[in-house]
């Protein structure tokens, strides 16, 4: 990070000398955190983790050099150091991968007894648990997320996802009684950089359990854990070609999606790219599921348990640096509670520790890429320019790497870009409302519909609001909870199809 003027540190550093007296906190209520003592570093040791200098493509059960002969670097966003170089798959490589997947489908995977298919998927889950530490460390190095998240959330959920779907493999007839469920064939799957391993699990686990073979394209900034997963799959002795991993950027993804022998396209990423994919497959027989962007409203009523709500708001927007499609990026707070909520939020933000993703105390890690950092800066600048009031947590930003201090905006109006566009960063836009109807109206006033949050002490009100929110996942008095058995996916321009649960099977099955 070389531009402190956008970091919030500059804005906050002058205030840091007199933190208790600033305008955000009336008479003596302000708390002072973090400036009295420095936290000692508590880094997760990475010495036993071996990252190869170069990764090839995993096609047909073998590690193959790309036809393109090209490689690209993957770097650590927290240090800007190169971690490895990774093959850049061309259309020809993708073609090989799809052929391998087709052969594997016909020769092995569709012929296996369902329970044996399940056993392979169980194996993957077990191996993920066995290699959990290594995977968590590499995930944090390659993607910048705090180790406590990769260790306690990403890897755990990824293993759980494989475990959950493994058990469905021999039970599909019960999932859709009388409807003769059958596999589609070859699935082309393109996944994002925010939860690299977990998204690979969300895609592969149901696809494999339902009897499909896969060509997986990880994001170009975070390919490493998908490659480690490929290694695990190799070690689990899955038949060659059942899972193929092709690394590369947008062109590689387009080749996967556009390949004529792909039967199913699954994509998680931005709404813009999702629309291009939907367009690209128009007129084909391909089945498609899209999990796209979001601009979730987190609605806080005055009767809510406020301290819990504050934790939910903080987790909702700053979890994984806000690189979460279902992030609670709009806070709608009932007018009578707004002042209290905003003050508590600022206090809580002041306690967030930003820095080394491998430090076990870190709350907020590095922004995933320079490109993403620039996008966040650009949108935050627009928020300031359009007249919203910015507050950034007073934290020091490391000198190297990509960082952005947790930031909130007050005085946001519906027309502001920061209230409408997905920022995909640690930036919260706060608006107020007076009645439940107004809250619902504002929450639904977006092209997205992935998720939403409700905080209230009134059971009836929470369900009333939940029924009216046009969002695929609604968290009431909680936020950002995930589980393999719980379907996840959007309404409106947040995409279609569900991942997780029995409903998630449908994305990979033909049923009567």
């Amino acid at each position, binding site marked *: 990070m070389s531009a402190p003027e956008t970091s919030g540190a500059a804005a906050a550093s002058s205030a840091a000398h007199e933190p208790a007296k600033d305008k955000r906190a009336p008479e003596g209520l302000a708390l002072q955190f973090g400036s009295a003592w420095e936290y000692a570093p508590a880094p997760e040791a990475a010495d036993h983790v071996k990252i190869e200098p170069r990764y090839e493509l995993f096609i047909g059960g073998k590690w193959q050099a790309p036809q393109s002969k090209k490689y690209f670097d993957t770097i650590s966003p927290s240090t800007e150091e190169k971690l490895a170089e990774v093959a850049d798959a061309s259309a020809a490589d993708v073609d090989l991968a799809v052929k391998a997947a087709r052969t594997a489908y016909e020769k092995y995977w569709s012929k296996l007894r369902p329970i044996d298919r399940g056993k392979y998927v169980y194996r993957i889950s077990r191996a993920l648990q066995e290699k959990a530490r290594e995977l968590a460390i590499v995930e944090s190095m390659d993607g910048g997320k705090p180790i406590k998240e990769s260790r306690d959330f990403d890897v755990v959920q990824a293993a759980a996802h494989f475990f959950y779907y493994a058990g469905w493999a021999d039970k599909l007839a019960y999932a859709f009684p009388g409807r003769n469920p059958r596999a589609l064939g070859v699935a082309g799957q393109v996944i994002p950089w925010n939860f690299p391993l977990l998204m690979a699990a969300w895609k592969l686990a149901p696809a494999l359990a339902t009897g499909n073979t896969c060509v997986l394209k990880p994001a170009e900034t975070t390919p490493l854990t998908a490659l480690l997963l490929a290694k695990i799959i190799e070690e689990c002795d899955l038949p060659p070609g059942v899972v193929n991993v092709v690394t590369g950027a947008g062109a590689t993804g387009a080749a996967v999606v556009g390949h004529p022998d792909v039967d199913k396209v699954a994509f998680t990423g931005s709404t813009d790219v999702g629309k291009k994919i939907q367009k690209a497959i128009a007129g084909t027989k391909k089945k498609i599921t899209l999990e796209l962007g979001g601009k979730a409203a987190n609605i806080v009523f005055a009767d809510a348990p406020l301290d819990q709500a504050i934790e939910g708001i903080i987790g909702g927007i700053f979890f994984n640096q806000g690189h979460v499609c279902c992030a609670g990026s709009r806070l709608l707070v009932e007018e009578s509670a707004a002042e209290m909520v905003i003050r508590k939020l600022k206090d809580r933000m002041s306690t967030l520790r930003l820095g080394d993703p491998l430090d076990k105390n870190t709350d907020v890690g590095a922004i995933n890429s320079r490109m993403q950092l620039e996008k966040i800066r650009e949108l935050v600048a627009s928020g300031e320019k359009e007249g919203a009031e910015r507050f950034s947590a007073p934290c020091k930003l490391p000198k190297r790497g990509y960082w952005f201090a947790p930031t909130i905006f007050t005085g946001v109006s519906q027309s502001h870009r920061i209230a409408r566009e997905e920022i995909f960063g640690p930036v919260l836009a706060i608006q107020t409302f007076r009645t439940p109807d107004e809250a619902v109206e504002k929450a639904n006033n977006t092209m997205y519909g992935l998720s939403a949050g409700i905080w209230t002490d009134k059971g009836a009100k929470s369900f009333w609001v939940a029924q009216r929110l046009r969002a695929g996942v609604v968290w009431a008095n*909680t936020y950002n909870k995930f589980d393999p*058995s719980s379907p996840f996916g959007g309404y409106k321009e947040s*995409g279609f199809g569900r991942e997780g649960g*029995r409903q998630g099977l449908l994305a990979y099955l033909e049923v009567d």
Partner: protein
Amino acid sequence: MAKKKDESGQPTMSAETSKNGAADSAAPAGATLERVPVRKAYKMYVGGAFIRSESGRYTQVAEAPGLSTKENVSRASRKDGRDAVKAAFGAWSGWSGRTAFNRGQILYRLGEMMEARKSEFVSSLANSGLSREEAERETLSAIDRAIAYAGWCDKYQSLFSSLNPVGGPHFNFTSPESMGVVAIVAPARPALLGLTGAILPVIASGNTCVVLASEADPRTAVVFSEALATSDLPGGVVNILTGSVKEVLPHLAKHMEVAALDLHGVDASLAKSIEESAVINVKRVRTRSLTQADWFDAASAETPRWIERFIEMKTIWHPAGP
């Protein structure tokens, strides 16, 4: 009203006439002074009202097979499409907000109204070229379909929903909701059974719709709207336009308030361009081309899977704790 002579030379009532309720006995044999029958204007059904196209355009269809007399049917414009979407969008929150039980009662009422109009449906289908026998078979199937989906209104939820055993102290469940406005292209044939079979699963779950009627037999769709209008269905839940699919559908595909498309028997090249346009707001596009036999196969056409095509699944989490 055109008249046909039977072999005895006696004037008989055309199907149209009997449809309009005139008893055959009202026309005494050998009468020279006939009662002049009242003709019917075939209007589109939008927002609960029967309207002509704002464009003032029409298409003509033969009054009955073999007759040179024509009847005029409205030809919908782009603007009619927009008006219909507006009506459908406006009706959506009310319709989806009704209890499932109430929706079921209204669809059952639709079945009652169709049964009462049985002979009118049969005549209308016959006028478009079906034999009397075929027309009767189709009409009875269509009525039964209304009854079948009336029953589904408050039952599919239990089949699609789940209580999810998440790993933590949370109560977590998933249940279906409607999508919003669905634009439906009804199949050319069977004109009545295809129309009802396409509309019913869409509205059973609380969606509202804009339907482009069969071009092969637009009049039967109008007769069907007359049954809808008397079945307590709130205005705007079903809006039926007659005209050219090729002309109106592209605009519906680009409309931001249309959530989904249900395309029956749309030719491949049009379907491709429609799917491309639908990207604008990530519409859910379903295409299918059922054979006539498929539409008549109640076992497959009355399964809840047709409802499943136009619902969204919502998952709600709530912590459980003391």
